[in-house]
């Protein structure tokens, strides 16, 4: 409710005035007061008059309305944008893969240098340093799988098949998949953050201006390190999962470790191991390429580094699981 129009306003008792008070005083003058209206204040101090005049001067523009995007058309537009973005992202990823493979080829025929120090450094960071977490996690999952299997199989008196359950799942799937997912979260994100912060500090531009190649310098060492280390870690993960299963077997199911090993040796074919390990380099490639590419896409701000790091983890885990599903269908058709 607007206060009634006042002809003159007695402000003789006014001692202090802040901007909020001044705005409220000006409201008393009506909807759109002018400088002349300040005369209607009776007994206004000079300092207060200056403040009121300044505020009056800056109250020229109303608050612009904020645009809201809730209409059906806006929704369609956003769907279109998202589709287009997905398309561009796929193209970018394919382009980056091509560039990386090309540089890798140039390294192989000796036209580009392989940065050995950098490769070893990243092998330590992504491989060796990840050993504790990978073994612990797969050990725990191995134990859980054995428990789950045992509870179901006991009803059929087939507890001994727990060995096959753990062996199949870890050799074919869990060993390599869990390792890949862990490394996507651990190393893929680190690649993005490292390269991204370099990009935001213009270090990538400096590399280019110095006549160097960012792919050769930054991407290849990380890619090669992961290509070497992920299969090794996956192997370790398989072993650790089997140990977890064997432990549960001996503690809760009366399957002694020697029985576990004999059964494993007799019933599990080596092809399961190769099927699992074959996937490791593919996953390593996906994680390294997505991590490095997202790093290169960072712009200026620190906020952008965080956004792209998240995107790298989400994308690489998505791609790893997608690739794993394709592999599963492929091997099933092949009958191995």
């Amino acid at each position: 409710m607007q206060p009634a129009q006042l002809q003159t306003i007695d402000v003789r008792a006014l001692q202090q005035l802040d901007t909020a008070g001044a705005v409220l005083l000006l409201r008393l003058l009506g909807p759109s007061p002018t400088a002349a209206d300040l005369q209607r204040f009776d007994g206004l101090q000079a300092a207060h008059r200056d403040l009121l005049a300044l505020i009056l001067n800056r109250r020229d523009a109303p608050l612009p309305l904020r645009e809201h995007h809730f209409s059906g058309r806006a929704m369609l537009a956003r769907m279109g944008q998202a589709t287009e973005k997905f398309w561009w992202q796929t193209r970018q990823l394919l382009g980056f893969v091509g560039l990386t493979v090309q540089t890798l080829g140039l390294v192989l025929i000796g036209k580009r240098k392989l940065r050995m120090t950098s490769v070893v450094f990243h092998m330590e960071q992504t491989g060796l340093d990840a050993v504790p977490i990978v073994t612990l996690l797969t050990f725990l999952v191995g134990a859980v799988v054995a428990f789950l299997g045992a509870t179901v199989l006991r009803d059929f008196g087939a507890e001994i098949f727990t060995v096959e359950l753990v062996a199949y799942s870890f050799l074919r799937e869990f060993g390599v998949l869990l390792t890949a997912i862990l490394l996507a979260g651990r190393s893929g994100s680190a690649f993005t953050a490292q390269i991204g912060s370099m990009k935001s500090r213009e270090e990538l531009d400096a590399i280019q201006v110095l006549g160097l190649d960012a792919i050769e310098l930054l991407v290849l060492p990380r890619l090669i390190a992961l290509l070497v280390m992920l299969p090794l870690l996956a192997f370790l993960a398989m072993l650790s999962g089997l140990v977890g299963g064997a432990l549960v077997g001996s503690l809760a199911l009366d399957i002694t470790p020697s029985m576990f090993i004999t059964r494993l040796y007799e019933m599990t074919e080596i092809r399961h191991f190769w099927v699992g390990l074959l996937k490791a380099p593919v996953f390593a490639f996906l994680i390294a390429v997505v991590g490095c590419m997202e790093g290169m896409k960072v712009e200026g701000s620190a906020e952008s580094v965080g956004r792209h790091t998240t995107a790298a983890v989400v994308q690489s885990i998505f791609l790893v699981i997608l690739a794993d599903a394709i592999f599963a269908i492929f091997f099933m058709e092949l009958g191995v």
Partner: protein
Amino acid sequence: MSDNTPDAVLQVRGLRSVFGQQVVHDQLDLDMQRGEVLGVIGGSGAGKSVLLRSIVGLKCPEGGQVRLFGADVTGLDDDARRPFERRYGVLFQDGALFSSLTVLENVKVPLLEYFKLPLDLLDELALLKIRLAGLPAEAAHKYPAQLSGGMRKRAGLARALALDPEILFLDEPTSGLDPVSAAAFDELIRTLSAALHFSVFLVTHDLDSLYSICDRVAVLADGRVIVTDRVDVVEQHSHPWIQSCFRGPRGRGVGGSFQASQAREH
């Protein structure tokens, strides 16, 4: 300088700041009067920003006293400090705007936190601060990332002014601005401090700012304030850093133009 100047809004006594082995301030004294624009200048690493952070409570000094509005605020806990924090505003180097909020929402943050105001008055006040800081009304709904460096500083200023502070702390407000924008920003500070009656604590590298808007200049060197006075007095001081700063190749031009502008006025 007497200890109980009646109108000193800020008194620093015997301040000592230490980082590991490195002593940044030792026995540092500084006074600021109500309504004045005090420029604080010093070489890189002289501890200007540390001084500002010690005064506004972002760093607890290793010794000495900071008095704001006559009360000792050294080492107060967060709750006891809050009544003082309402009475000063800080503009950080790049504005330090909250990146997930629009400019208008940024300015409203302190208002919402401290007062229960009707929404229309809140919007009107926030918009007024944005306009006072010299931004167009259209900037109100923009996000910090959509603004240029100069506009971000103005938006940061609008937020610092939200609670009608009695002291405004500015950390290198003109760094990263082109000379024209820098001069306009100096002018804005001068105008606003005159109209809204706040004191300004200005940490700067910019000699132009010292000459154009500061009532007094404090020079930080050797861990202390070596002189606090009008800029034309300070530039005569015999300390070697002051000499190379004001008499050096970059100082002379500014001093010359200052004398020229003085001559024009008389």
